[in-house]
Each structure stands twice: as structure tokens, then as C-alpha cells.
């Protein structure tokens, strides 16, 4: 066998436990890194593949209340545009709908299309992913077939224009652009008989669904705004809802963004711990094997050969462990994929991906190689004779720390402190590990209180405004609604909050979705404004922070905004954030908006006193308003159902990262305790000989780790608390979050830090039980 391999094999044989621990750390890191890269590199591309496969539109517009010549007008207009390559203007029934989902009620803008029409569209085609023999009924987007929701044969209850319908679920379909409630409108396919029934009921109501492909996807937002402008000018009474490619690619992958953010952070942090552990091990190896290294040099081994044997050992172990980790990641991907599909609604088949594999392998092996090389370089400085005489001391104590005569500590504690202060490298490894794990503990505690136990903070950060009920009425019924609400004792407060995908255009900039509010001080989510304040007067505006930063707009600047009537200048009073519009939205007062545009209708958000049944309340309002009412939504239920996917995802993530943290602590501590016991085997033998019991020595060993564990956990917890929101902003930056607004639960974080310390203490105590194996008789020198 090659000499290098002989040395490597000998090193591994002597350090089996250390090898196992490093394997576990590399395995965890590579598993998470490969999952991260697969998710970030291919998962999003999957949307593009699905979009191309279905020849789906980059711009999609659903309209209702269209006139007879609408289709020909839109077709001609699209035909004459050089930036549109293909389009389909097809028949559809568009209306506000609501249905049960994830235990709540989901209200959406529905695009109901006859199944065969949907499957044969040239642009914006849909595909059946699950079919059945049922001839009459409804096909649902496949996202509603995931989890414990609908299955073939179930009865699907839907409210269209607040009228109840029941359909049998015939199957599920995929649509890239309108296949989920994250798309601002959602498609439903009816069999021809059910479609005819619907048309008969609502005749002469008609609508259209337009899908258009553009030459350059990056321009779709601007082109969409132009097309909608032209339609609105020609048909001012036509209501329309739209989305575009850029918006959907991001909004359908919010959970993927969260997951990749967390996986990447965890993979890199575990790798960092692994590097610190390897570095510390090599330094200890050199210290403990000084004589052997000297002897090897004396018999002709060069420094290079000894270093390369260490490189072969560690990089070899790393590559093998990384391959196992990558292989295991394919086992974890299917359940993760199921969770992702529940949010994205896009089918994805797990497949082998060579690029993430290569990147993971090269990155991890490269980092380990560099760490080994730089920490093993000191072997070059070892002179054989000096080393064989153990001339290079591994420890040099200038001061006797914690002298027993003077210290007030107990014997065990003082001995432990002496041990602590005699090993800086051990402390460094403990500190890095505990700092990382504290961050994870604080993150988990924050997620627990801000998502799992109470979803409201997450709703505030991601969804935006929330309330119990949202009632949309025609403007001529507005006063009637207000007087009803004012006289109803069940109403705690109400305010105008109209969004309905209304848009305004920032002159010289982009189209922004606008929220129109009569009194911003009544809004439940005051956290939406992360800097400055909401607008109070008609010449003020709050704009999305992401858009403001991208466009260089500052608070106090004056910007021009136009809508369907005219253009006006507004002073920017604050920056807002929510993910619904991906960082392209603004808030205007009603007076402010009405200077430039017309409110098509009015949505009032209503907070009810506790224990009032929202659906019952809405039904009562519907009774009174009758034809003037467009929709009455149970916002609370809507948010509950939409957020349940995220809650589940966060639960899984928190459970997974806590498990990974525990594994990391156990293996790092195992390595450190093992190294410490090996290094101090002689000392433990002496202490046992003079009467120290195993339990005293176990306690002493465990206590010796505690100062660095406690200090780093305390520092880690204290520093992680303010770090959580910037980290959330980093993870969710792509969907418009610039500043996290979670409240870090200080007490829970401190408890988490305490649990971490106790867990580590327990783990170290258990591992220190190896002290039992050290027998004083090993000090025997004779026969």
C-alpha cells in the first residue's frame, strides 16, 4: 500500500470516534446543502418548464361584465402589438368565489372555464393531472388535492356571487399561472353540462380570460400595465384582474424561499462547526503525536507526505460522508416536495440533479481541504529531534489559575475551571457551536411564538392587513352599509380598506398596487409601515419599501402618481411592506386616491367583538344590503386556511432544525469530551488513585465545559434576538420583505438558551461516563 494511505489508515483506526463524529457533521451539512441547491436551482426552473409545457401566458387578464365586441377588440389589439408573440382570448366565467380549504374559507377571484376549452387553449393551456370516470362535476387545481383537502368523488361546495353551488370533484389539473390562490385569481374547470348550468343562471353575464406570451418575459409587467390601460380606456365599465409572469414566479415560491433560506443557513453553519472541529482535532493530533511525528520525520517522511496523509484522511472521510449525505437528501426530498407542492401547486418530479451534487461535493471538500491544510501546516515547523524529546510543549501555563488556597470555589468547580482555562481550542469549538445553536434556538423560539402558536405576526409581515370580516359593496350601497355597521353592537370597529388588485402608475416608474384607506389609524396592522407613517392627508402616500429602495425614493420625496382620471403629486410619508404584491404596492387615503382615480367599489374591513360568528354576521349584512353587496368574506377564516400551509411548513422546519441542533451538539461534545479524556487520561488516573470517584470526575469534566457553554449560549442568545428580523428579511427579501417585524420572545429565548445549556450539560455528563473506564491501575509501571 502507498505510504500515505498506510499513515491515513493508521490515523483513522486510532480515531474511530472522531471519524464517526466528523462523518455525521459532514453528512448533515451535505444533506442540507444538496437539498438547498436542488430546491433553489431546479425547483424554480420547474415552474418555467411547467409554464413552457402548458404554453402559458406571461400576462393573464380575467375580465367580467364584457360587451359583445370585447373579444374582437382585445384580439385585434394583441394581434397588432409587436411585443406579443401569441395569445388566446377565451371564454370564461369570472367571479368572486369562496370555498372551504384547510379548515377555513378561501375567498378568491375565480376564473371558471369549461374543461375541454381549458385543455385546448393555445396559450394558457391547462392539463389534467388526475382524472376519473365521473362525467359531471368540477376539476380543481392540484394544490387543493394535497394534504387532507379534496379528493376525487368529494362534494365541492363553492359560493359564486354569494350563491351556493355543489359539484362532485372529477379530478385535478395543473395551471402554471392560475393554478393556486397565490396567483391573484384561481382557475376552476367545469364539465360542459355544469358550465351550461352556470351560464344559464347568470345569462347574460359574460367574461373572458386572456393569456398572452411576450417576446421578453422581463418586460411583461410593463406590457401588462399598458394593455390593461388600453382596455380600461376603451371599456371603462369592465372589471379586470390580472397577473404576470414575474409576480407568479415569486409568489408561488414563498415557502421554497423560506425553505432554501433556512436550509442554506443550516448547511453553512453545520459546515462551519465541522471545520472548527476538524481544525481543533488536527491541532490536538499534532500536540498528542509530537513524538510520533518526529519519529516519522526522522525515518524520512517529509512534512508534505504527513500533511497529505492528513488531507487524504479528512478529505476522504468528507467525500464519502458527503456522498452519503447527498444520497440521503434524495430520501428527504419527496416529503419536502409534498410540502412544497401544497404551497406552490405545481407538480414536481424528484429527479437526479448532477449540478447540485457536484457543487455540494466540491464546496464541502474544498472547505475541508483548506481547513486541514492550514491547520496542518505547522507540521512543517516540527524538527524531528525536538519533537521526539517532546520539546514542543502542547501547553504552557504562565499562571496557576484558581489556586485552591485562595479560591472560593468548591474543589470540583476549581478543578473544572483549571481544566477550562487550560484548553483554549476546546473553548473556541464550544463557543462556535453554541453561538450557532443559540441562533437556531432563538430562531425556533421566535417561529414558535410568531407563527406556530399565534400566526398573527406572520400574517402582519407577509399578508398585510387583516380583520374579521371584509365586505365589498357597490358605491351606491356604501352609506347603507356604514349605517348598518354603526348601529350594530357586534361591530368593534370598521374602516374602508379597498384593494381589489387596483393599480396606480408611478410616473417615471412602475405600476403599483394600491390600498385605499379612509383612516389609517384604524388599520389593525400598524407594522406594515416599517419606516415613517401611513398617509393622513390627500397629498400623502406610503409606498413599498422594496420599490422605494430600488427606485431611490426617500421619505419626504414627492412623487407623481396617475390612475384612470388624472395625475397628482404625493409626499412619501412612509415605507410599507407585504408579500402579496412582491414589494410593489402603495397606500393612499380615499381623498388622495379620488384625486386621480375612481373607486370601483368599496371594501370595509370589520372587527367584531369576541365570540361573534363571522359567517353569521356576514349573512346578516348580505340580507340587508342584498343586490348592492359584491362579497362578504370571512377574512379570519381566509387567513387561517391560507396560513395553515405555512404553519405546517414552519412546524416541520423548526422540528428539523431542533433535531439537527441536538445531533450537532451531541457529536461536537462527543468529540471534545473524547479528546479531553484521551488527553487527560493520566490526570484522571492520578485523581482516581488519590480517591476521586467516577461521579466526581464526570461532574468535573462536565463543569469544565460549562463556562464556555454558558457564556457563548448567553452571548449567542443575546445577539441572536436582534438578528432574527434581519435574517427573516434576508430569507424573504425576494418576496418584498425588507425588514422583519417579528417580536422575539425574550423570555422564551432565554428559556431556550437555558434548555440548550442543560441539554449540553446532560450530553457532556453522559459522554464523560467514559471516565469510568479509566482505571488507576493503568498507572502501574511494573508487572
Amino acid at each position: 500500500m502507498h505510504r500515505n494511505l498506510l499513515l491515513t489508515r493508521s490515523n483513522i483506526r486510532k480515531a474511530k470516534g472522531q471519524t464517526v463524529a466528523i462523518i455525521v457533521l459532514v453528512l448533515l451539512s451535505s444533506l442540507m446543502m444538496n437539498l438547498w441547491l436542488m430546491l433553489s436551482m431546479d425547483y424554480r426552473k420547474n415552474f418555467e418548464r411547467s409554464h413552457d409545457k402548458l404554453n402559458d401566458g406571461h400576462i393573464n387578464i380575467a375580465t367580467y361584465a364584457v360587451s359583445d365586441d370585447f373579444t374582437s377588440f382585445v384580439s385585434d389589439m394583441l394581434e397588432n402589438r409587436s411585443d406579443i408573440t401569441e395569445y388566446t382570448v377565451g371564454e370564461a366565467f369570472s367571479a368572486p368565489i369562496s370555498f372551504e380549504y384547510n379548515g377555513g374559507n378561501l375567498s378568491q377571484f375565480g376564473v371558471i372555464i369549461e374543461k375541454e376549452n381549458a385543455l385546448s387553449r393555445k396559450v394558457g393551456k391547462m392539463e389534467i393531472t388526475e382524472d376519473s370516470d365521473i362525467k359531471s362535476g368540477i376539476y380543481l387545481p392540484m394544490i387543493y388535492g394535497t394534504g387532507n383537502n379534496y379528493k376525487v368523488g368529494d362534494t365541492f361546495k363553492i359560493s359564486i356571487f354569494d350563491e351556493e353551488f355543489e359539484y362532485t370533484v372529477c379530478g385535478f389539473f395543473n395551471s402554471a399561472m392560475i393554478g393556486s390562490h397565490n396567483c391573484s385569481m384561481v382557475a376552476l374547470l367545469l364539465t360542459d353540462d355544469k358550465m351550461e348550468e352556470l351560464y344559464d343562471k347568470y345569462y347574460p353575464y359574460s367574461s373572458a380570460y386572456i393569456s398572452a406570451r411576450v417576446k421578453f418575459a422581463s418586460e411583461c409587467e410593463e406590457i401588462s400595465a399598458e394593455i390593461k390601460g388600453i382596455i380600461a380606456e376603451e371599456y371603462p365599465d369592465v372589471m379586470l384582474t390580472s397577473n404576470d409572469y414575474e409576480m407568479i414566479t415569486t409568489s408561488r415560491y414563498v415557502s421554497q424561499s423560506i425553505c432554501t433560506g433556512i436550509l442554506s443557513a443550516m448547511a453553512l453553519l453545520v459546515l462551519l462547526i465541522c471545520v472548527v472541529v476538524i481544525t481543533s482535532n488536527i491541532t490536538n493530533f499534532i500536540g498528542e503525536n509530537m513524538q510520533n511525528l518526529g519519529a516519522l520525520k526522522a525515518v524520512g517522511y517529509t512534512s508534505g507526505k504527513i500533511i497529505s496523509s492528513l488531507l487524504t484522511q479528512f478529505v476522504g472521510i468528507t467525500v464519502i460522508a458527503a456522498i452519503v449525505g447527498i444520497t440521503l437528501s434524495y430520501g428527504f426530498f419527496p416529503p419536502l416536495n409534498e410540502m412544497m407542492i401544497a404551497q406552490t401547486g405545481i407538480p414536481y418530479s424528484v429527479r437526479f440533479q448532477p449540478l447540485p451534487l457536484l457543487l455540494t461535493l466540491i464546496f464541502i471538500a474544498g472547505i475541508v481541504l483548506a481547513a486541514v491544510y492550514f491547520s496542518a501546516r505547522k507540521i512543517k515547523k516540527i524538527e524531528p529531534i525536538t519533537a521526539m524529546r517532546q520539546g514542543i510543549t502542547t501547553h504552557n501555563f504562565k499562571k496557576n489559575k484558581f489556586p485552591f488556597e485562595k479560591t472560593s470555589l468548591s474543589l470540583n468547580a476549581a478543578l473544572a475551571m483549571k481544566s477550562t482555562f487550560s484548553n483554549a481550542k476546546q473553548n473556541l469549538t464550544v463557543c462556535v457551536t453554541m453561538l450557532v445553536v443559540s441562533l437556531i434556538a432563538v430562531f425556533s423560539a421566535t417561529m414558535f411564538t410568531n407563527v406556530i402558536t399565534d400566526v398573527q405576526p406572520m400574517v402582519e409581515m407577509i399578508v398585510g392587513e387583516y380583520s374579521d370580516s371584509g365586505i365589498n359593496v357597490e358605491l351606491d350601497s356604501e352609506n347603507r352599509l356604514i349605517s348598518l355597521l354603526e348601529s350594530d353592537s357586534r361591530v368593534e370597529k370598521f374602516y374602508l380598506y379597498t384593494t381589489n388588485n387596483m393599480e396606480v402608475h408611478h410616473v417615471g416608474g412602475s405600476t403599483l398596487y394600491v390600498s385605499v384607506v379612509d383612516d389609517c389609524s384604524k388599520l389593525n396592522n400598524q407594522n406594515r409601515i416599517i419606516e415613517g407613517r401611513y398617509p393622513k392627508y390627500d397629498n400623502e402616500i406610503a409606498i413599498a419599501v422594496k420599490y422605494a429602495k430600488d427606485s431611490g425614493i426617500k421619505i419626504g420625496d414627492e412623487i407623481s402618481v396617475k390612475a384612470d382620471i388624472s395625475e397628482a403629486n404625493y409626499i412619501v410619508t412612509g415605507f410599507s411592506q407585504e408579500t402579496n404584491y412582491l414589494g410593489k404596492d402603495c397606500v393612499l387615503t380615499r381623498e388622495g386616491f379620488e384625486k386621480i382615480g375612481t373607486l370601483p367599489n368599496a371594501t370595509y374591513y370589520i372587527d367584531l367583538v369576541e365570540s361573534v360568528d363571522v359567517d353569521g354576521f356576514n349573512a346578516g349584512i348580505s340580507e340587508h344590503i342584498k343586490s348592492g353587496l359584491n362579497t362578504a368574506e370571512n377574512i379570519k377564516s381566509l387567513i387561517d386556511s391560507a396560513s395553515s400551509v405555512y404553519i405546517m411548513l414552519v412546524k416541520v422546519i423548526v422540528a428539523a432544525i431542533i433535531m439537527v441542533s441536538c445531533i450537532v451538539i451531541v457529536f461536537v461534545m462527543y468529540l471534545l469530551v473524547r479528546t479531553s479524556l484521551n488527553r487527560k487520561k493520566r490526570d484522571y488516573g492520578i485523581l482516581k488513585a488519590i480517591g476521586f470517584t467516577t461521579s466526581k470526575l464526570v461532574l468535573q469534566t462536565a463543569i469544565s465545559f460549562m463556562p464556555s457553554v454558558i457564556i457563548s449560549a448567553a452571548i449567542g442568545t443575546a445577539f441572536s434576538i436582534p438578528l432574527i428580523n434581519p435574517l427573516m428579511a434576508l430569507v424573504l427579501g425576494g418576496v418584498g420583505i425588507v425588514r422583519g417585524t417579528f417580536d422575539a420572545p425574550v423570555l422564551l429565548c432565554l428559556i431556550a438558551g437555558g434548555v440548550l445549556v442543560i441539554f449540553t450539560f446532560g450530553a457532556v455528563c453522559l459522554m464523560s461516563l467514559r471516565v469510568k473506564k479509566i482505571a488507576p491501575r493503568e498507572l502501574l509501571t511494573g508487572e
Partner: protein
Amino acid sequence: MKETLLKTEKLSKSFSNGGVMQHVLKNIDLQLYKGDFTVIMGASGAGKSTLLYALSGMDTPTLGTITFGDKMISELSQDSLAVFRRDHCGFIFQQIYLIDTMSVLDNILAAGLLVNNDKKALATKARELFSAVDIPEETIHKFPTQISGGEAQRAGIVRALINSPEILFADEPTGALNSKSGLDVLDTLTKFNEQGQSIVMVTHDMRSARRANRILYLKDGIIMGECDLGKYTPNDNKRHEKLADFLTEMGW
């Protein structure tokens, strides 16, 4: 009539070496007496250190019993043995075995604090012992690696005596020292024995053995003979000749 400190009956110790059993101690019946300076001698491989460590509760016998007073120490658990060693025994090792990461004084106090929590009294006692073994104050604050071998071994004696053990076990205490240092250590041990300290020492050095009043000769795991030398007096040639004759008789 001498008071018995330690007693063994049918004491045996075997080791498995590559699947082959090696019987190092064979059915040893022995009594050690209070105030004695007992030396165990024998050729290499005779089982001297094995016997010493079995007697001191550092190791457990394979068969037979060891009784200390009315306590059967051969049946104690490892932790109970540690407590027994702490409360009744002192140890001096050939390799000294001071802990390098603490000062000489702390090495002694680490042993002392196991029994006595009064740090002040303990430190005073340690200083008296250091003074008795000729270790100056400035040395006791140094680390073991910063003092000579002789000083370290005398510090080892102080550690062994700090808890006023009923019996002091010494395993070749002069084995790693030069002649002068070895003599100093022997003088120290003799001095403490004269003050009533019971000592059991393993050695194959005749010069060291002369300090004992009782010699046990071990061969192939069996006590082949014993010699009563009487009280040690320097330059007592008759005593030296008696020991030499005994050892010759034993085939040493």
C-alpha cells in the same frame, strides 16, 4: 503484639493475555501490621506491583479476600474503593504522577480537599509537610515541570501524607530518580515511618529495601519468604548482611 492493618486470604490475580490466562498472584495469605515499613521485593514479573495495587484497592483481586480492619475491601465497588483509598491510603508512584496543569501546592490540596474542607488548615499542614521534606515555599507555587525529579517525588510524598493515611503505599519511589534524590526520598520515608507511619513499598533496589523492618520476597506470584530486619539504623552492617543473606537465599 502488633496490630494488623491489612490482611489477605487466598489472594489471587490473573490476567488474560491474548486468550491465555496468566496467574500473577497465587493464593497469597498475608498480614500487614501497623507501624511497619514493609518492603516487597522480587524479580521482574514476580507480581510485586500487582500485589501492591491489589492491597491498596487500586485493583481488584480475581479470587480471595482483602480485609482492612473489619472492612472487606475486595468486595467494594470501584467508587467505594476510591473512597477507601481517599480515607485510608496514600500513594507514591515511580513516575511521580503530579498533575502538570496545577501548581505543586494545588496538587497536594487537590488530594487534601477531598477529605478536609478547611483550606487554611490544610494549607498549613501542607506547608509543614513541605518543610519536613525540604521543599521551600517558592517551589510549592511552581508547576511540576518546573522542579527537579527529587523535589517532585518529595512533593509526591507530601501528597500521599496530606490526609494522614493509615497506610502509605510506594511503588518504586526512587526508580526514576538519581542517587542523591533517591536517598533524600528514602530518608524522608524513614523519617515518617519513625513517626509511626505504616509503609508498604515495592522495590528491587537493595539500598531502598534496607530501610524496611520487614521484607517480603515474591516469586512467581507466591510469597517465597519473609525477613524481619528490625528497626532501621544507618550503617548497621549486620542488618545489611542479614538482608543480603535473605535475598541470596531467595535466589535474588
